[in-house]
């Protein structure tokens, strides 16, 4: 199967051919030709202003009564008795979705020895009901047990939407939940909304952040998505009411062929990066490992963390745990300062959600300036010392 061209409407303008990420559209004398490389991604359909392209009609139609699924759920992640920030963010986002659908917002809490305090916290961020599964087997996270528990809960309560953070935990076990429920899953969303037909519109970056795609799951329930930390805004409202339901699950939910032997916490830069309010990152423009003291000094002045581009990591100037970007960390601090970083798309996807972005680069045409709030075209070795001096003058 491949995309379909309507020869009557096609003007052979070539826009689709340039847009096709698979390089599957060739221009012939008076028509475009689609090769077997077509992956049916549909990008061409959207770029054609003449409406000449379409995808073949498919789909198996709703498998059952979708209307019997009601409610929005958030998987509530926690560490050492504290709810993970992304769960606050998701509850606030889920609150908006639940209100648009006119349904209840629920949170799911799995663990061992859970007190009501965490559940109460989930309520203050918008949950109307918190389902708690408390069992000794859930003390340590394992994909098998955690996914079996959620699958069982969903089968019992039938929510229409299930959201989780795109953390290492969420990205690890939520796909198994989706497969267990035989439903679609959209990874790493940055935007969620309800469409006119009531479907969950899930928007995420693709092709290394070069394009954004909105995805739906029209024929299966629940609709599932993992969402990037730090993109939704958490809203706390004290004094909210909600109920806490402790649920007993059958023993098969706790069986696993995996044993957690050891958990090694690393209080390293990695964790600091994702939680930092300010990040100062350096790239290949720094020219040496020693010069990173400029970055460290500036970060220190603003209580910030130190990040790096892959360029700097590849040079061996910074440890991989500092890398921001597609193959590093996704961060969204209040302030992100990119110094001597060109702004390759793989770097941009990891930081463009930051509130304020400052770019320091001597090349005025560097793509990092495309995402910058404040652009400083300057030699970093002149600018950084001057800026540090200016900050210090105030103290």
């Amino acid at each position: 199967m491949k995309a379909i061209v309507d020869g009557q409407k096609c003007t052979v303008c070539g826009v689709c051919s340039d847009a096709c990420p698979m390089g599957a559209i060739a221009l012939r004398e008076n028509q475009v030709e689609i090769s077997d490389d077509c992956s049916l991604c549909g990008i061409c359909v959207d770029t054609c202003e003449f409406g000449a392209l379409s995808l073949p009609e498919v789909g198996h139609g709703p498998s059952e009564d979708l209307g019997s699924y009601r409610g929005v759920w958030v998987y509530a992640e926690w560490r050492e008795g504290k709810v993970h920030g992304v769960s606050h963010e998701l509850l606030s986002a889920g609150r908006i979705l639940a209100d648009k659908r006119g349904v209840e917002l629920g949170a799911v809490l799995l663990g061992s020895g859970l007190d009501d305090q965490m559940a109460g916290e989930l309520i203050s961020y918008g949950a109307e009901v918190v389902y708690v599964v408390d069992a000794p087997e859930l003390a340590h996270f394992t994909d098998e047990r955690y996914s079996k528990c959620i699958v069982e809960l969903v089968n019992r309560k039938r929510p229409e939407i299930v959201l989780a953070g795109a953390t290492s935990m969420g990205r690890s076990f939520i796909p198994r939940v989706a497969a267990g429920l035989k439903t679609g899953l959209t990874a790493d969303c940055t935007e969620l909304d309800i469409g006119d037909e009531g479907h969950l519109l899930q928007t995420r970056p693709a092709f290394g952040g070069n394009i954004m795609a909105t995805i739906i799951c029209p024929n299966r329930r629940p609709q599932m998505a993992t969402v990037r930390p730090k993109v939704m805004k958490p809203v706390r409202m004290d004094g909210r009411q909600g109920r806490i339901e402790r649920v007993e699950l059958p023993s098969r939910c706790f069986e696993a062929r995996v044993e957690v032997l050891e958990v090694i916490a690393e209080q390293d830069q990695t964790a600091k990066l994702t939680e930092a309010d300010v990040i100062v990152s350096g790239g290949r423009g720094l020219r040496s490992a020693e010069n990173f003291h400029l970055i460290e000094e500036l970060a220190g002045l603003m209580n910030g963390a130190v990040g790096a581009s892959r360029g700097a990591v590849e040079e061996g100037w910074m440890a991989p745990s500092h890398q921001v970007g597609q193959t590093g960390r996704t961060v969204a601090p209040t302030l992100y300062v990119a110094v001597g970083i060109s702004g390759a798309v793989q770097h941009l996807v990891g930081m463009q959600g930051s509130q304020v972005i400052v770019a320091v680069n001597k090349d005025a045409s560097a793509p990092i300036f495309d995402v910058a709030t404040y652009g400083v075209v300057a030699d970093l070795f002149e600018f950084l010392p001057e800026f540090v001096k200016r900050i210090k003058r105030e103290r």
Partner: protein
Amino acid sequence: MHIVVCIKQVPDTKNVRIDPDTHTLVRQGVESIINPFDMFAVEGALKIKDLNGARVTVMTMGPPQAAEALRETLGLGADDAVLLSDRAFAGSDTWATSTTLSAAIRKMGDVDLILCGKQAVDGDTAQVGPEMAALLDVPYATFVKKIDIEEPGFLKVLRQTDEGSELWKLQLPALLTVIKELGEPRVPSLRHKMRAKKAEIAVWGNAELGLDPNSTGLCGSFTQVVRVFSPQRRTNRIQLEGSIENQAEQLFQYLKKARVPGL
């Protein structure tokens, strides 16, 4: 021990960029590469083969030219290659991909360990591995950076999490998704390259897998892309001009106004 490594051919995103005028992807001169994470998986499998002895099969689902990717890994020392290729597989989302890949694993029958990359850099979903594990009902661990085989029938792995690392013990057969720390891919050897050139690559279509056509490709996908657009770029950027002192002063004032901590 029979290890299957799942690899995917992806556009080399290093060279992908957006045309500033049309806001579309420019793909000219963009080559296909093996998903970098999958190369770490290949390396992981070959290390086990070196140390403990194993048969390594590489498998990919993709268009006919994906055979090149398989040949490349044969050149590194993989033993067999299987290409899953059929028009019926086109347009697969992660569910349909996992369904097809796991059908092929079932057909092979004797698989002890499946290795996948952490994620494919074109789609970035990181879903195919865990979904396959669910469909095959085997235990799995994600983001693995070290694999140890001590006891027969079991595997010890060190996995990277947001908070640190975890040591897990898994019962075989199992599936792992791996990250860079597992090891950079080796260089191809002449001997393997010679063999790779002549090697026969098995091609399985749906005739071989026998899946319900409604469960593969676009038809078998639960998710649908409804809109594609360029990410919004900031248009209201403020360019700071003047002398270095002037630039520093301006930036300081702006950040102070934005209530940046410490200023």
